């Protein structure tokens, strides 16, 4: 079954979507959309370095993303606003990465594959790495869920309950680095952040609890990756961007539904507004 490239691609997409869903929710709740971008752009530097040093691409990307995540965590709250800091680091990392790639004479590398992903070329080894990464991230998110959620609500509230918000943030940023490294093959460096944010944002209007939002985001993510894969196959379009397009369409439909529902509940005072015993 795994010999079929479409099966491998579908499984890879599902793995990334599952891992991205809970983290994407935190990225949305904590307003750190830029963070995903920064880590993802740093991935290109990782690609360049691992080609220069002829190590595995996955390892290079993972190391650079982890470094980037740690650096941002350490530097945050020290004079510069977070978005400035992330803007500087994201684009510098991308620029240095692109320059470094140009030094690689002799090796013709397909830069497009790293910028936009190459999900159809996912091999069995890639699949194993994606599976392991997704499992790690999902179990980490599940294990730290309550603590992460409390720290997201309010740092002091977390402290009072004996939760260190700094540590939880580190857990989150390191998990993000793993997702970036794992997702590079699937949607590429430029679109990883989209896979984090868009399914979570699309899930928001239908959810009443954080857990529901994470599950629905996983569902939307899975629908986008597997649907996008099929669409790209039939329409002969680039796969990574097609996946993100599908996620964007889901987002548009969901916000429309959310608007409609809100208007309806405003028209007729809903039962929710009156306290129930």
């Amino acid at each position, binding site marked *: 079954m795994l010999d079929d490239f479409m099966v491998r691609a579908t499984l890879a997409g599902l793995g990334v979507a599952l891992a991205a869903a809970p983290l994407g929710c935190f990225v949305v709740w904590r307003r750190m959309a830029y963070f995903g971008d920064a880590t993802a752009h740093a991935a290109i530097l990782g690609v360049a370095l691992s080609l220069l040093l002829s190590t595995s691409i996955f390892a290079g990307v993972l190391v650079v993303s982890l470094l980037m995540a740690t650096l941002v965590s350490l530097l945050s709250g020290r004079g510069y606003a977070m978005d400035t800091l992330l803007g500087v680091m994201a684009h510098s990392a991308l620029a240095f990465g692109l320059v470094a790639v140009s030094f690689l004479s002799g090796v013709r590398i397909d830069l497009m594959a790293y910028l936009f992903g190459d999900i159809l070329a996912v091999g069995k080894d890639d699949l194993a790495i994606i599976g392991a990464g997704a499992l790690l991230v999902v179990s980490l998110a599940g294990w730290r869920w309550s603590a992460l959620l409390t720290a997201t*609500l*309010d740092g002091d*509230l977390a402290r009072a*309950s004996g939760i260190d918000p700094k540590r939880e943030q580190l857990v989150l940023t390191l998990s993000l680095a793993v997702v970036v490294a794992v997702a590079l093959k699937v949607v590429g460096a430029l679109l990883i952040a989209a896979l984090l944010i868009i399914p979570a*944002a699309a899930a*928001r209007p239908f959810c009443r609890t954080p857990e529901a939002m994470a599950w629905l985001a996983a569902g939307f993510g899975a629908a986008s990756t597997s649907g996008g894969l099929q669409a790209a196959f039939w329409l002969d379009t680039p796969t990574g961007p097609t996946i993100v397009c599908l996620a964007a369409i889901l987002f548009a439909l969901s916000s429309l539904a959310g608007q409609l529902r809100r208007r309806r509940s405003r028209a007729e005072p809903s039962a*929710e507004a009156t*306290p129930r015993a």
Partner: protein
Amino acid sequence: MPLLSLDDLHVALGGRTVLESIDLRLDRGEIVTLVGPNGSGKSTLLRTIIGAVQPARGRLVRQPGLTIGYVPQRLAIDATLPMTVTRFLNLPRRHPKQALRQALEQAGVPGLSRQQVTDLSGGQFQRILLARALLEQPDLLLLDEATQGLDHRGTADFYRQIESVRRELGCAVLMVSHELHMVMRASDRVVCLNRHVCCQGTPERVVSSPAYRELFGADTADTLALYRHHHDHSHHDATANTPAPSAAGASHPEATP
């Protein structure tokens, strides 16, 4: 062993000393209120006790295994985060349904359990915050101007609830409050803070102490004057400031909140 003891505690924020030489002991079952002007370090003291701020010097000893219930001054929940009241009460630990219902009833907001937290009014949310803190069965309850946004009736209920919580749980309560007349009735001990502990003791003793009068105006019966702070005493060197006219206390009502 006291629940909490602070020993010659100094706290600096951004290189500026915010608290100095704080000595404070809290025992089980005590209700202690922190009063002091804006910027006197009341919230910082609470944040130091929960561990969000590291003291620059001095000792802070919590009884081992101390459970803290904390009600912050305000809490902004991002609109992108869906959260029902029930889910909020279950963070970070889950509680049995019965306990949740009881907590909401005690807080005077039964039937809100399915509401989104972001849809609550300020007063309702404040009560939910207290209910959440109480569910943890804390040994020490920290309240940072927790009656903000409550109406008169709500405030009275709130203090009554604190009183009964203390009786039932036997916990200590440390609260910051601006409602001095309420505070005086509800507290066992009042600590008057202005970067250092100006004075502390029973409400009666504190009210009649010179340091308190200096901080809150000479006429302590006048509640308007209570809110005013004269920066006319220096804690570092006695020659720095000349005292402002002491009559200023009650004669500028436009400056009082």
